[in-house]
């Protein structure tokens, strides 16, 4: 059992900004956008959504860990992209899972949406031609299979669990991983999340529920320029941009890290988890405030110790406003600098909070706060100090927020260790 905060040894992110973390980071620092025209499926006439954050530039077939057969069987992109992210994060951590270590390694790498694309494919084929689904159809659609395939890839035989919690899934995988370490049930945890939810029926559902960005015509900034569609905290924000992505983080106990002479890259200093018990999608101030406070308190800190905030900020009308109000409630007039990665990446669902945790850690290491692009001030949603351009800022603690559908909130406090 450990009373000291666990540490992050390595990480990786695959996003709409780049097929790996370095490319993602470099383009993010430049203020780039990963949002472009939606191409994942042919757009039928009057399809309500036309922009997305798609992952390009990764040639899975060229990756050593996959055979052609493997890629054919595991047809849902969540599975190979999840595996690839974890494999790269392990390499980044410089960690080899020997048989002895593998039995003490847990897997919490998860997905919010999972391989539903394969369920839909099977359903369509059955309807169209009465052809029975391939034997891999149900395993692809089983939400914990992403986690299972990561375990099979790495050989990790410790506890395994998918921490499915909508948009907070990635953060939850870290929080639950920390608990496994705290109870001494593992030494290392493979954390993170993946989602590739640009599937026609899902995107249509996001549109009809009024959640995601829909083009409004010529008057909109994003008309002709999809990169301007995601604009958290802006006066003309009109919903999130659905995007794809994966991010993995290798978490271990401080004792394990020290005993093996490994270099920690950050500490997971604290987390807070609450549920809204309020409405199925509308955000709720009191419980997200409580989640932030719990995370800060669990890290043994006061609000003024937080140097930067990586906001959930999905670019929805109500969500951004409630988050700003909650930040004011927790931090008052001394709200630290805030940034919203989703302005550049769109919203990668369960993977978003994992990607944002990775970017927040790199920010701690390099003394950088990434920009919130496309910002146009909104008096009703005023952030005291929003990083609208990349900012050099040495900071020790960053708060990373994630609030999901169903009223599922998870906030993390990450501490830099380089200073």
């Amino acid at each position: 059992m450990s009373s000291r905060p666990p540490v992050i040894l390595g990480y990786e992110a695959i996003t709409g900004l780049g097929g790996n973390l370095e490319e993602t980071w470099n383009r993010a620092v430049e203020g780039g956008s990963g949002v472009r025209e939606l191409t994942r499926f042919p757009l039928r006439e009057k399809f309500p959504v036309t922009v997305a954050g798609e992952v390009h530039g990764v040639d899975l077939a060229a990756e050593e860990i996959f055979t052609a057969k493997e890629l054919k069987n595991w047809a849902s992109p969540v599975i190979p992209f999840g595996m690839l992210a974890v494999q790269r994060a392990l390499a980044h951590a410089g960690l080899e899972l020997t048989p002895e270590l593998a039995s003490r390694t847990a897997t919490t790498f998860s997905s919010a949406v999972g391989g539903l694309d394969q369920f839909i494919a099977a359903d369509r084929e059955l309807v169209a031609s009465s052809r029975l689904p391939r034997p891999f159809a149900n395993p692809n659609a089983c939400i914990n299979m992403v986690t299972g395939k990561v375990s099979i890839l790495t050989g990790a035989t410790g506890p395994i669990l998918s921490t499915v919690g909508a948009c907070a899934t990635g953060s939850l995988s870290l929080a639950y991983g920390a608990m496994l370490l705290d109870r001494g049930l593992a030494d290392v945890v493979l954390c993170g999340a993946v989602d590739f939810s640009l599937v026609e029926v899902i995107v249509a559902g996001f549109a009809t529920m009024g959640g995601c960005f829909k083009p409004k015509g010529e008057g909109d900034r994003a008309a002709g320029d999809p990169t301007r569609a995601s604009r958290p905290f802006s006066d003309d924000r009109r919903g999130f941009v659905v995007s794809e992505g994966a991010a993995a983080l290798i978490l271990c106990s401080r004792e394990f890290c020290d005993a093996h002479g490994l270099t920690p890259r950050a500490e997971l200093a604290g987390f807070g988890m609450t549920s809204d018990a309020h409405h199925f999608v509308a955000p709720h101030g009191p419980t997200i405030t409580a989640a932030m406070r719990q995370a800060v308190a669990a890290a043994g800190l006061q609000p003024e110790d937080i140097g930067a905030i990586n906001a959930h900020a999905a670019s929805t009308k109500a969500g951004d406003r409630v988050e700003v109000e909650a930040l004011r409630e927790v931090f008052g007039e001394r709200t630290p600098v805030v940034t919203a990665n989703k302005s550049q990446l769109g919203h990668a669902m369960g993977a978003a909070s994992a990607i944002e945790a990775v970017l927040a850690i790199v920010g701690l290491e390099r003394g950088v706060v990434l920009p919130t692009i496309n910002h146009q001030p909104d008096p009703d949603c005023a952030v005291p100090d929003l990083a609208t351009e990349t900012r050099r800022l040495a900071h020790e603690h960053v708060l990373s927020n994630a609030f999901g559908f169903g009223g599922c909130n998870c906030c993390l406090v990450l501490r830099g260790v380089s200073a």
Partner: protein
Amino acid sequence: MRSPQNRRVVVLGHALSTALGHGFEQTWSRAVRGESGTGWLTRFEIPDWLDSRVVAEIPDYDPLGYEFITAKDEASWNARYVLSVAALSQDALAHAGLELTEEDLGPRTGHLVGSALNGLDSYGIACETLDRRGPNRVSPYLLPNVCANMPSGIAGMQIKNTGPVFSPGGACASANHCLTVGSRLIQIGEADVFLVGGVDFPILPPIVAGFQNMNATYKAREGDRGTDDPRQASRPFSPDPRGFVLAEGSAILVIAALDVAEAHGLTPLAEVIGCGMTSDAHHFTKPNPTTVIRCIGLALDDAGLKPSEIDTVNCHGTSTKIGDRTEIAVLREVFGPELKNTPITSNKSMLGHSLGATAGVEAILAIEGMRRDTILPTINHRPNPDLLGGDVDVVANEARPAAHQTVLSNAFGFGGTNCCVIFRKWG
């Protein structure tokens, strides 16, 4: 982080829906008589290609029977797991004798419900709508319906818990995972109470077809006893297992820190004394004896028990050839000569396999079995000396009166996820 605490965790209440009936009394009264809940599929018209047409459907659950559920709710939440969890959460909390308020326990109560397939029924409907009526007619409730943590979210709107919520996904072991995660979070003080459980409503054409094509589920065949009489399709540990029977199910348990239960004057039903979790890292569906053995060992260590101190085993026992064979081999390895003194049973013989729900259903039946000095039967059982030798005591065909204090409840899921939980009778 908070310093570790070691609070004891107890079970205070429960609620379930199974193929034997909605509600505990219906299920238990029929199970104790050795009745079967398996039968011909009625959830959709049986197409020509369907061989796996014996299933286990919940016969009598009607969401509109709950006061807080309106006809509009029923139409909006067309993934059946959502309202089922909301309804059972209310029932389980009432059974526990707890009421949550903002001042008392609400902020300290979490909700963890796992499901293997979640809201796929809603997806199926949306796919049809998209094809027939276009993208703008897809339900705005589609995404909320398929969000795995939504059943807990909707339940929370009724029962007013604001502690940690997510959906621990562990396929057929999901409910044991929820029990384990909830127990750990209570132990370390992250919460005082959890509603935990599992749910699945998987009887949908592509899912039934997918399992059929995996050769995982029972296929009807002329001359087979399960086809002559569909109640005999699920027969774990018999000489003729031919795959599991896909089932609907839903189960919620209320667990709490013992100190909190005592402070509220509540008497526990049982204590959660040990949990073990391992991953196979082996194959996506085939079981792996080594890691399953370690999983049971971890649960025993956690409970501080020797195998001989386990009084009965509630098996995973799905009625697949390889699964049943592996579980018996594992039990032999763990229990050694003690196995012959440890009666084992599989509730799936009566209830089929309700995937994410099954471990929750089995936990409830195992706990109530201890309280009622009864071990439920493994029905449809025929002697199987090849598999069971002389050292395995299956509680065959009839419920067995037997006082017992501890039970090991096994659950192993696709993706190689194992989770075993040990309960002790209270008092």
